[in-house]
C-alpha cells in the first residue's frame, strides 16, 4: 500500500523513485538467488515508501550502508503480504518517515537493492524479520 498524497511534489518524488528502480527486478514467484545470501549489509535510513502489494512487498529506504556514504534510495524486497502476516507483520508495521535499520542480502549486480532479512524501528526498537521458512508449523498464534 503506497502512502501517497496527490501533490505535485509527491508525484515528482514518485517519478524520481521510479527512475532509481532502474535495475531492480520486482518479479512474481522468482528464486532469490539474484541476492547474495552469503552477505549481510546493514542500511540506516528513513523509510520513503512502503508498497504492501503482491507478489512481493517492497520498502524504499533512503539511507547509507557506511558512515560517510552519500544517502541513496534502496529497494528492499520481501515475500507476499499473506506470508509476511504469518511472520508477524501488519500492513502498517513500517510506515513512510520511520527511522530504520535494515539488514539485507544485497543484489549481486551491485544495484541498490536487496532481500530484507530484518528491519528495526529505531524509535521503538521493534523489529520484523522475513524468513518464510521460519514459521513452518501448524496453528501459529
Amino acid at each position, binding site marked *: 500500500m503506497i502512502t*501517497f498524497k496527490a501533490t505535485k511534489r509527491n508525484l515528482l518524488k514518485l517519478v524520481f523513485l521510479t527512475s532509481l528502480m532502474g535495475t531492480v527486478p520486482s518479479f512474481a514467484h522468482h528464486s532469490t*538467488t539474484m541476492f547474495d545470501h552469503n552477505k549481510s549489509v546493514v542500511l540506516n535510513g528513513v523509510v520513503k515508501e512502503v508498497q504492501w502489494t503482491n507478489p*512481493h512487498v517492497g520498502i524504499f529506504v533512503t539511507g547509507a550502508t557506511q558512515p560517510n556514504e552519500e544517502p541513496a534510495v534502496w529497494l528492499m524486497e520481501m515475500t507476499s503480504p499473506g506470508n509476511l502476516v*504469518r511472520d508477524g507483520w501488519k500492513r502498517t508495521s513500517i510506515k513512510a518517515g520511520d527511522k530504520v535499520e535494515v539488514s539485507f542480502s544485497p543484489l549481486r549486480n551491485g544495484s541498490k537493492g536487496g532481500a530484507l532479512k530484518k528491519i528495526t524501528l529505531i524509535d521503538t526498537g521493534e523489529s520484523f524479520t522475513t524468513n518464510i521458512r521460519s514459521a*513452518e508449523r501448524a496453528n501459529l498464534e
Partner: protein
Amino acid sequence: MIDCSLRRFQININLGLMLAMFFCSLFARAASVDKYDPPTLKDWTNIAALPDWSGSWNPKITDQDMQQKTNPPPWNARSAATIKFQYAEEAAGRPTPLFVNCLPEGMPSWMLISHNAMEILFTPGRVTLLGESDGNRIRRIYTDGRKHPDDPDPTLHGHSIGHWEGDTLVVDTVGIIPQSLLAVSEAEGVPSNGDMRVVERIHLQGPDILADDLEIFAPNVLTKPWKTTRLFFRQRAKKYDIVEGICLEGSYIPKIDKNGDAVYEQIQYDVGGNRTVTNK
C-alpha cells in the same frame, strides 16, 4: 368375454405405466448427469462426515527444498540437460525466471513448489482449492461421479475429478495445457509438453498436516511416472485467513492522475525484465 377384455385393458394400462416409469427414470437420470440437481439436506449432511480440512494451509517449503535433492523427478535426457543448466544458472545468481509472468503456476507446480497458502472448500459434489497467489488461483475437483470430458479443453489446472476412499480424496487430473511447467522450484522446471496426467491422494497425515501424495505421468519430459509427496500446515487462527493475492498488482504503481483519481500506472520493463526509467 367382458372379463377377458377388461383384463387385457388392465394389462395394457400396467404396461403403459411401466413404460412411462421407465422413460421417466431415464429422463431423471439424464438430468442428474448433465445438470446440478438442487442439493438435499442429505447432501449437506454427508459433507459433515468428511475429514476436517478447514482453516488455511501453508506449504512446507523446507521439504520442497529437500526433495530437490532426495527425490528428483526421473527427467528424460533432454529435460535433465535443461534442469542441470538451470541449477548452474541459479548457483551463479541468475535464476531462470520460470514464473515471472503472473500466470498461475498451474498443475502440478502449484502443489509442488508454491510458497503461498491455500484453503479447501467442500460443497455437494465438489472440492475447491483456493490459493493465495497469481490473482487467486483455483482448482475445481468434481466429486459428483462425472467422468473427464472425452476431449477436455486444455487449461493450466486441467480437468479434475475426485472421489473419497475413506478419509482420502483421490484426484485424477488431465487436460493440462502443454505449457504448464513441471517444476521442482521457482527456477528449475520444464514445460510438460502435453499428455500429462496427475493422480493425487490427499489426506491428513496428522491432526494439522495435510499430505498430497502425487503421481505424475508426464511422458514427454519424464522416463517414468514420478511419485512425490507435498506437505501443508494448518493454521486455524482467523488472522491467517487467505488474503487477496493479485500477482499483476506488482506490475503497476498506484498514482493519482491529472483528474485527481486514484489509478494504476503500468510499470515498464526492459527486455531483461528490469524496470525501465521511462515510466514518467
